[in-house]
């Protein structure tokens, strides 16, 4: 977003004094604009999750809304007294989010699916990456170029054949349908291979001299040294599959039991009372929160992993 060639002279000055610098200011303006563009939808989501329907429609009430009591029409339909059906908007939004759809169940499904996917991906990717980076065998370069080639295949292109295969096997509407297609991550193999290339050969030879088997080397030597890279991969993988709407929408057709959180959002879309944005945004907030918290916790190591600082 910023012009990095401008930054070099500015940076040297910044350390010593705080003079006004046009390039520095420009950079920050650009960055702030970018941040606003990225954050605005989140702001709207959070804000709507607090407001009453009328405030959302008329776009009033600021960030938090006035939090005046409003009448819950659904509650009245059920035959309750009007006085009993007056609710605070944010409480209404969040309770509806959890009561109208089994959001906890969806969250649990999300955890099961993303964790299984990541676990199996690592189980597959580490030995593959090790073989591609550190073992010498005929055809290694060819296989690696195949891996690179597979990186270029968009998932949507193979979704239909995949679906047909799963359907023929009778696996649609199961956890397996959600997990199996993602267990081999070429991106993971590629990322870990690049990291393993930086691990010195001597370390592996030392392990061999100590009597470790090749699988022993993978799990006891390569895995611990690759934690930063694995963390980076974890974030990519978990974010992608936690937020995935496309694939679960295809293979989970009947049972609500197997819905993942993004599918849960659909529950609020276009039902008889019209769109119910407040609870919908509350659901969205609940769904993204785990990811944001996880990122905050792993932020430092994540950045380490992205820059792939090897080992010393």
């Amino acid at each position, binding site marked *: 977003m910023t012009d990095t060639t401008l930054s070099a002279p500015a940076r040297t000055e910044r350390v010593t004094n705080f003079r006004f610098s046009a390039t520095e200011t420009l950079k920050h303006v650009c960055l702030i604009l970018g941040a606003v563009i990225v954050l605005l939808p989140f702001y709207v989501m959070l804000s709507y999750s607090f407001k009453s329907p009328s405030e959302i429609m008329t776009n009033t009430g600021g960030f938090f809304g006035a939090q005046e009591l409003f009448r819950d029409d659904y509650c009245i339909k059920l035959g309750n007294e009007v006085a009993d059906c007056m609710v605070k908007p944010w409480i209404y939004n969040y309770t509806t989010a959890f009561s109208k759809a089994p959001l906890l169940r969806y969250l649990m499904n999300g955890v099961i699916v993303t964790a299984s996917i990541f676990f199996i991906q690592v189980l597959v990717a580490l030995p593959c990456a090790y073989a591609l980076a550190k073992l010498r065998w005929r055809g290694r370069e060819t296989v690696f170029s195949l891996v690179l080639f597979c990186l270029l295949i968009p998932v949507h292109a193979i979704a239909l054949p995949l679906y047909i295969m799963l359907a023929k096997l009778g696996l649609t509407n199961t956890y397996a349908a959600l997990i199996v297609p993602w267990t081999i991550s070429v991106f993971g193999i590629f990322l870990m291979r690049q990291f393993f290339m930086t691990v*010195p050969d*001597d*370390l592996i*030879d*030392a*392990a*061999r*001299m*100590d*009597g*470790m088997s090749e699988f*022993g080397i993978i799990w006891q*030597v390569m895995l*611990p*040294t690759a934690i930063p890279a694995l963390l980076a991969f974890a974030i990519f993988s978990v974010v992608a599959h936690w937020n995935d709407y496309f694939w679960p929408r295809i293979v989970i057709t009947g049972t609500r039991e197997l819905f993942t959180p993004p599918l849960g959002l659909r529950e609020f879309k276009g039902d008889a009372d019209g769109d119910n944005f407040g609870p919908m945004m509350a659901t969205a907030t609940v769904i993204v929160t785990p990811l944001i918290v996880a990122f905050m916790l792993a932020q430092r190591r994540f950045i380490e992993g992205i820059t792939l600082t090897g*080992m*010393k």
Partner: protein
Amino acid sequence: MASIALKHISKSFGDTQVLKNVDLDIHAGEFLTLVGPSGCGKSTLLRILAGLEAPNDGRIEIGGAHMNAVRASERNLAMVFQSYALYPHLTVAENMMTPLKLRDLTMLERAPVVGPILARKKYHALMGQVEATAKVLKIEELLGRKPGQLSGGQRQRAALGRAMVRKPVAFLMDEPLSNLDAELRVHMRAELVQLHQSLGVTFVYVTHDQAEALTMSDRMAVMRNGHIMQLDTPHLIYTRPDTLEVAKFIGSPQINVFEGEAANGSVRLAGKALSLRVDPALSGPVHIGVRAEHLLIEPAARAAGLSGKVTYQENLGSDVFCHVALMDGKAKMIARMAAGGGKSFEVGDEVNVRFATEHALIFGRDGARLEVESKAKPEPLQRKVA
């Protein structure tokens, strides 16, 4: 302790042949150094011996047993790497314990959490071995640290410790000192030699530093382009090199080479016969090698020897290396003189270069050293070139 024999070892990587029919006999308990310029195949030979690389051809024997098909870990050798290759996520103690665990414990006993509970006694015994080794190397206080928190020298010791705990029949070391600073390197040389003496185990030591090879080894093998050119004691390699190449590689500064002519059993340099005798059948150009410390430089006034001009002087404190360009050609000679030893020259001085013929090494046209008989032997004081 075990003798090691490498027989007709050949190794190629693709089209490049790295080792060409290498034969090497290593005596039990000796300190043998493989020395040679970068890329000559020293590490490859060591890795073949270790079992980390398979030779294309040849036979490896350790203690008389055929080892070609035996896995690296079962050859009971220990290797110390240039980069130390300690496991970065384990403490020094865990690093040292790893080879023991892998050798002495079953899979279940090695398992985390459960293992140490099941096999408490065994773990205790292993820890005892680790501590004993650490004591020998004086790294007891480092046992709890991770490699990242150690200095280069400490890492070096930890790597040695990991090699030692297993009590291997031989240590293989691949340039273990080259990542240390000069002072520590000299210190560690002495320590390694002491360690060798106290353990009495075979050491095979790879280096490209001839000073290490000369000071540490019982015998040294000089390698070049994938073969061993000479295998002998450091003293014999230095004083009696088999070929001009060995003579040039070993010794610093490099040996001085004069171009002479052999005919009728005598060698002539710049038209004058040297007081030594060679095989009368030999005739044609020969190389005369003279070590820097045997080259004498004198003021031009004394008209014996070859004339030249001082081009540069290197003062090393104890010694002065005096570079002389000979007048008759482009040949450059280096003489080593004691500093402040009376004679001193300025750059640009015209000088005479002489040497004592009994120290001269004569090499034939193919580079092989020729046996000579010195005529000057009975009167060593009369050192005359011509």
